[in-house]
């Protein structure tokens, strides 16, 4: 199951990173980050779970 990233959290992440241009859509960014974190989690089977 993908880590949940609500659009509001994506908006905060964007602001923190200085990505303030309206071309960045928090909804789309949230979906993209969830998919990428899901890919990252799939690596547990190869390198073990992350403790951080």
């Amino acid at each position: 199951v993908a880590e949940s990233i609500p659009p509001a959290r994506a908006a905060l992440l964007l602001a923190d990173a200085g990505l303030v241009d309206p071309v960045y859509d928090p909804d789309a960014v949230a979906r993209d980050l969830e998919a990428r974190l899901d890919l990252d989690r799939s690596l547990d089977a190869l390198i073990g779970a992350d403790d951080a």
Partner: protein
Amino acid sequence: VSPAGPGVARLSALLASRQTSSRELAEDFLRREARERSRLHAFVVVDADDVLAQADAADAERQRGSTRGPLHGILVGIKDIVDVRGYPTRNGSPLYGHTPADADAEVVVRLRRSGAIIAGKTTTHELACGVVSAPARNPHDPTRVPGGSSGGSAVAVATGLVPIAIGSDTGGSIRIPAALCGTAGLKPTFGIVPTTGALALSPSLDHLGPLGATVADCAVALDVLAGTATRDHVGGSVDGLRVGILTHAPIGPVEPAVAEAFACGVELLRGLGIVCVDVTVPELTHVIAAEFGIIPHEAAAVHARALRERPADIDAPIRTLAAAGLLLPARVHRRALAARDAIGAAIHRAMDHAGVATLATPTLPATAATLEHPYHTIDGTTEHIGLAYVRTTAAFNLSGQPALTVPCGSDPHGLPIGFQIVARRGDDGVALRIGAALEAGLGGSDGLGGTLGAHRDHDERTGAA
């Protein structure tokens, strides 16, 4: 399906015997490049005066009885992410202007030192991150993609405009367009070709290397770029060598025509005395997660300023990928690097266990997709080409192994199919030796086996047979 023009050996012989001159080759190049520019867009910048001046200088040196090196008087294309003094480096992106580079990249320095004539800058997919390379088109069917990101380099070689063009490869960007356009292409061992003066995408995975009309052309280019002596391997015996055949996921599934061509290539290798055994590396199922765990963070570091100040000038998929690198925690990058190391170790363990010097795979699961529908459906699963093409190539960016693609037949539409040969790190010559044997077995080693016809007017003009 092989490139349409002669390879370096043939051109060098014509130059040495005075049957042609670099001036004649340059004029022929300029005429044909201008003719094909609006159709295939292999090059983004060609400076005719500069090309002719380099050619005249090469001819003058030869007339004085000296040649600089193995590429003396030979035209070479340079992907437009690599600096060439006096030419803008536009990286396929509106982020970069028209200011000329004030110095050559190290690979260009080495090419010039070997006598090469820099023909111009070849079309790249934006920021070297993609497999379409617009506006370049596949010369076998201009409604189809040439592959990328070194698409223009592949088109330039496939159409016989140049026998060698330089490309870059972070997840397959030399091998993908080479396979789709029907040329040879080598991603060398990681680190042996300097990347100084070239745009980075993901420095942990970036490689520069050659696309060539023949495997021998890739070997001579590698020797110039890396100071190796791999061309001595080309033509050597392959009898008794052992090759591991790797076809399971994520290499497979592949299109039926690809499977058939690959099987024919394996049988040809067996006929040459090579022992082919099946090899399995289950860890390869994590290739895409590792590759796309590494690239975002490194691309974000390269493009951080543009992501903040000019994001609308970056194509949406690339912007999304690079922005993720600024937003995801650093542990994602660290874990992907650990996965890269685990995958590389697993490949080498499997090769040790099977006692093989090289691996062989289909270079790509499918042939060139149309621009209109950039997807492939194989065994009922539809994939975008941005993932489909990379799943057979990216493992060897992660492992840093040399990986060569050799043309190996075509599908029912006449579209080229590639055969990938992967050696151990530092054994680029072994991959080239097997690749040359395969190429010779398929009848393509003189660089004149092509179906595109561009060699004909060259040969008519030079009097070559």
